[in-house]
């Protein structure tokens, strides 16, 4: 069993190892990328912190609570971005016809696309949100009981999985959108932005889109309000324990992603040549 697993993952490991080696060999370029990735994390943190320093609290979250939401959401997003972010390049592959190469190999298309690259520089951004997470956990005075540990662990697993589904959903949609690739940015990157917000400030349409259809509220906001015992869930008409449903939201997002990817690849007619 383990031998066949080793054999079947060998091609993917070979590609990933080569991508990692190539990033390590272009040192200057990698440092620039890592530094800019770090800066993105810092600027995004500043955008949240500056606003919450101005007021007592927004939508039931104070600065301490929102730092926890930000940390979980951003850490989840940057991990998903590291592994799945290059799915964004799909429109270029489609235009250049290079996607057809993937079709010729006897391996699943999505698995090939995902393992065709890994962006180590995103670790710099993940490091920023991890640091914020450590600080936020301290500030919120959490007691280390099974409830806290379980909910945090659940959120930190479900979050990256949910964001990864967003990238795959978007990639599936690219087969139809082509030049309109920016449309999906509204939900993938808009989703990241939404995930750092208190869902209690949204009106009904935003709640439908980013609360349920793309379950961004379940990546960080709802687990945090459940964890801290805040009234955030009841503000949007949900029970207080709803944060525990983060894995259900992740499953839902992947169902959505799988349908999108399947429709997209069925729709694809080849790049010619």
């Amino acid at each position, binding site marked *: 069993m383990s031998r066949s697993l080793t054999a079947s993952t060998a091609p993917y490991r070979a590609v990933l190892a080569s991508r990692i080696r190539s990033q390590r060999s272009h040192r200057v*370029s990698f440092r*620039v*990328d890592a530094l*800019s990735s770090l*800066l*993105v994390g810092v*600027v995004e943190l*500043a*955008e949240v912190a*500056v*606003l919450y*320093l*101005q*007021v*007592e*609290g*927004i*939508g039931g979250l104070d600065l301490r609570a929102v730092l926890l939401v930000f940390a979980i959401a951003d850490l989840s997003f940057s991990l998903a971005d590291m592994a799945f972010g290059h799915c964004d390049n799909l429109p270029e592959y489609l235009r250049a016809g290079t996607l057809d190469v993937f079709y010729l190999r006897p391996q699943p298309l999505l698995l090939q696309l995902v393992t065709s690259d890994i962006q180590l520089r995103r670790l710099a951004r993940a490091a920023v949100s991890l640091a914020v997470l450590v600080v936020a956990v301290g500030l919120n005075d959490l007691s280390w009981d099974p409830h806290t540990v379980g909910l945090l662990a659940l959120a930190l697993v479900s979050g990256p999985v949910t964001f990864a589904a967003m990238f795959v959903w978007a990639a599936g949609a690219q087969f139809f*959108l*082509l*030049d*309109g*690739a*920016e*449309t*999906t*940015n*509204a*939900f993938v*990157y*808009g989703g990241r*932005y*939404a995930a750092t*917000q*208190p869902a209690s*400030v*949204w*009106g009904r*349409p*935003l709640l439908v*889109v*980013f609360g349920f259809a793309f379950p961004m509220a379940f990546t960080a906001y709802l687990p945090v309000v459940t964890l801290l015992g805040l009234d955030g869930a009841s503000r949007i008409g949900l029970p207080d324990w709803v944060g525990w449903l983060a894995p259900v939201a992740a499953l839902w997002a992947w169902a959505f992603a799988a349908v999108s990817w399947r429709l997209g690849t069925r729709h694809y007619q080849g790049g010619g040549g």
Partner: protein
Amino acid sequence: MRHGTRVYRRLVVAGFRRQSTYRLAALGGLVANTTFGFLKVALLLAAVRAADGSLEGYDVGAVAAYVWVSQAMLGSVNLMGRNDLAERIRTGDVVVDFLRPVDVQGAFVATEVGRSLFTFLPRGLPTFTIGALVVGVPLAGGVAPVLGVLSVLLAITVSATTVFLVGVVGLWLVETRGVQLFYMIVSGFFAGLYLPIWFFPDWLVVAASATPFPSMLMYPTDILSGRVDTTGALGHLAAQVGWLVVTLVAGQLLVRAGRRRLEVQGG
């Protein structure tokens, strides 16, 4: 002189028409700008309400105007650092630009401005209209709209002249991706894309004002939303003109110094 300006006018029109072929892309941009607009306005309205209706001079109406004017301008000002010049320097195509009897900077800026003007039609105006219909956007009256439109035009020109600087650095560095990334990260923050820069602590406001970025977004939204009075608007316009001159002169100097260094392989 008459002959000279005609070339640039034609380049503006050419940029306008070139952009008009990317309709689906414009639709994608519209969806993205509008969605981000709804998320921004929900958060900032809640923030203003939490501050008892007034936050750093913004009331509910001014914050809505800030969000929808800035989202509408987003497609027309270049906060991404994307530019053709960097790529043309890297591939050597820029030689052709230098051989033309047209100023390299002038041609670049004219084409960019044309492209930006077109983008208002499928992206900027619909974004603003959707925001105005759904959320309501009270704009300032009196001379403010006139000064505001002037400020928007200055904003897209300053964005073109500043991005030209990012591209022209390629004459020294060849690979300018790092500079572009840096530009992209800093420009949005200092232009007041996610938050008005006036929410920043004082030292950060000073830092932002020492860059051309507020001229690309913050100042025109201030004028159109009525956050500043006529005197304030004139001050903003003066700052924009100042940055336009600085970036234009810097671009000219850099091109003159850099073209002697340009080395192109093959031929």
